[in-house]
């Protein structure tokens, strides 16, 4: 016989868990007592939200299931934003929460919250475990559900008496089978043939590549497919890294802050192949004018995404990697589509992303300098807002899983804790958190975690003393009325210093490279406070509700 807590820890190890991000509390005391002697690594965060984001960052950087742990009530509720972030971006996370003892459930007991009820809409599935004997099976199922099909977070709520309760070992099946859960991996043969027929006839095809390619580890198949068939590729925010930035067929990001050439290509293509992407409103702009001349092939593992926002001509439900492999095995090499490729080359040449150079400290320059410095040897995490968009636009990503950002939910405060998690997945490369002064203050307490564990996250704060993206909207669409978007100056170097973290303030372009180099040379965490041009905007930009080829802040159309 073993306690539930012991069964839990053994079950996690059985699933290959090496690290947990968590925060102790009353009803998880039995679990923490078990962790005390365990070989499982535990990182003590300073706020449970950070535990969820760290597990998420670990999962995105490694491709494995991330695990976080919190106590009941406030602890569990603090995980919610992190769980929702993982849910929106389909990230495999298992969230463990303590719960009041089963005899007090529903009794408004101390630190009780109905966390399975609360997280129902933001988890792929969740469990309230009622006895120690169920625990090993539930953990096995949770990892299976989180990590297969369209990935996502799964929460396991564990009452205190389940952790302390006793059970004999339960024999688990080799393979989990759930009669209500059978993801489709292999694409339908006839649909794949239809896709190839459309591709054969297309003169101006375009691949619209999303985060599904990263989750499915299908980047090399994607690049091979695009190259063999001569199809330009535009990526979503989540898809960045699935094709190298400097690949001749890569058009960068599309959508609201996409490149002009990507958005032109969307508007003019006659065939769009959407792969692991979901026609999000930040991508499509006005949906009726999105890819108006194109037939659409949509490849996705989640059948509910197909036809949700846009009518599709050829739906292919399946794992992106498996479908791409099938496409590759059936397709013939195709002549370069010279007219189309030439047109795109022309757009790229005449509509490049702008990087202002007037002697002031511009964020685009900082991102490009970092990109040139670290090349393909770094993991870049961002917060949300202008910092995120500048990084997505100007950093040159070479590999999948090196760009980690909160796309769907757009969670400010995500970056620093996610960067901590990413470090444990990729200890071999430096991890940078690109932040704004607004976002970094949403989880700045995690300076404590990176300091005390010497987690070498390099924090790049693009400090404009504004909530920059909201300010930008107020400037452009609300007549410069900066309602509650100005932030008083903060000395981030001093804050870092208080936690025992080295830092530097940067105020001119010539200090950028030395500061970034210093951060890499430093063995531990490092904070850089870049005092950037305050009212710099992210351009180009598609105003809300406009068609995506109606951009402001771009070049005159040639």
């Amino acid at each position, binding site marked *: 016989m073993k306690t539930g807590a012991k069964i839990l820890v053994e079950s996690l190890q059985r699933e290959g868990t090496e690290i947990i991000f968590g925060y102790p509390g009353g009803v998880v005391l039995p679990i923490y007592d078990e962790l005390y002697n365990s070989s499982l690594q535990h990182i003590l965060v300073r706020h449970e939200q950070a535990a969820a984001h760290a597990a998420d960052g670990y999962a995105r950087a490694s491709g494995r299931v991330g695990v976080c742990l919190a106590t009941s009530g406030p602890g569990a509720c603090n995980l919610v934003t992190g769980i929702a972030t993982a849910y929106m971006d389909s990230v495999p996370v298992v969230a463990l929460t303590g719960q009041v003892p089963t005899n007090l459930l529903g009794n408004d007991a101390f630190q009780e919250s109905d966390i399975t009820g609360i997280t*129902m*809409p933001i988890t792929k*599935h969740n469990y309230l475990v009622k006895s120690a004997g169920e625990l090993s099976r539930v953990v096995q199922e949770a990892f299976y559900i989180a990590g297969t099909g369209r990935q996502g977070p799964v929460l396991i709520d564990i009452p205190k008496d389940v952790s302390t309760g006793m059970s004999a070992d339960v024999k688990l099946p080799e393979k989990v089978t759930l*009669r*209500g*859960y059978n993801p489709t991996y292999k694409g339908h043969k006839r649909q794949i043939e239809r896709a190839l027929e459309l591709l054969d006839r297309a003169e101006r095809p375009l691949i619209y590549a999303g985060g599904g390619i990263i989750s499915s580890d299908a980047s090399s198949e994607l690049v091979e497919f695009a190259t063999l068939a001569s199809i330009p590729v535009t990526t979503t925010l989540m898809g960045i890294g699935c094709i190298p930035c400097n690949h001749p067929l890569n058009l960068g990001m599309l959508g609201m802050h996409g490149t002009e050439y990507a958005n032109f290509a969307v508007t003019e293509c006659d065939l769009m192949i959407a792969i692991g992407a979901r026609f999000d409103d930040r991508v499509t702009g006005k949906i009726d004018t999105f890819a108006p001349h194109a037939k659409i092939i949509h490849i996705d593992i989640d059948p*509910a995404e197909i*036809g949700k926002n846009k009518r599709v001509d050829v739906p292919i439900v399946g794992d992106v990697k498996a479908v791409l492999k099938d496409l590759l095995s059936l397709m013939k090499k195709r002549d370069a589509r010279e007219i189309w490729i030439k047109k795109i080359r022309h757009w790229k040449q005449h509509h490049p992303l702008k990087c202002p150079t007037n002697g002031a400290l511009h964020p685009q320059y900082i991102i490009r300098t970092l990109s040139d410095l670290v090349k393909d040897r770094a993991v870049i995490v961002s917060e949300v807002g202008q910092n995120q968009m500048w990084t997505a636009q100007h950093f040159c990503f070479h590999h999948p899983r090196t760009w980690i950002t909160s796309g769907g939910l757009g969670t400010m405060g995500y970056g620093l804790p996610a960067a901590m998690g990413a470090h444990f997945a990729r200890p071999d490369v430096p991890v940078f958190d690109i932040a704004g002064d607004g976002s970094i203050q949403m989880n700045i307490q995690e300076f404590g975690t990176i300091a005390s564990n010497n987690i070498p996250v390099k924090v790049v704060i693009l400090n404009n003393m504004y909530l920059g993206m909201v300010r930008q909207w107020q400037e452009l669409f609300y007549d410069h009325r900066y309602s509650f978007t100005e932030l008083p100056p903060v000395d981030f170097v001093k804050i870092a210093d208080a936690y025992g973290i080295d830092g530097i303030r940067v105020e001119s372009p010539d200090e950028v490279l030395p500061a970034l180099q210093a951060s890499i040379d430093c063995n531990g965490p490092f904070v850089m406070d870049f005092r950037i041009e305050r009212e710099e905007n992210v351009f180009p930009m598609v105003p809300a509700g406009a068609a995506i080829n109606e951009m402001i802040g771009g070049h005159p159309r040639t």
Partner: protein
Amino acid sequence: MKPHTLSILVENRAGVLSRVTGLFSRRGFNIESLAVGPCEEPDMSRITIVVIGDDEKIEQVMKQLNKLIDVIKVSDLTDSERVERELALIKVTAELGTTRAEIMQIASIFRASIVDVGAKTLILQVIGDTDKIDALEKLLRQYGIKEFVRTGTVGILRGSKTVTSGK
């Protein structure tokens, strides 16, 4: 936009109904009627939901339902040969005398049965499709309906076709 009758086979577990109904409300689908109970498999339940929407919206509802781990199978019965029934209990004001006789006459036309006779009220039990129950309710309104309760529609395919597990 027409009513669709969805037959949903689910795991018979705590919280499943709230997962299903929560999905409807969160994605903005209105439930017209809902009926739930055990079924031929002891560890499963069957939910019948009537929802109004265009075909695309219904397709999206079904796909989202299918994503729930506890949902085993979802079928739209609407375009198939099927039997749909609902049961209603109607407590009508019926003073002794002529109105009481009239009400009993209406009941017999609708093949409703009188399941309770009080000093001032009758309770009618009627089984049928939604239209029939609506029609009876309309007729009885003039006498004064004190309370009206209906089970929600349940539906089943005609012939040997079934909605059973194997998603």
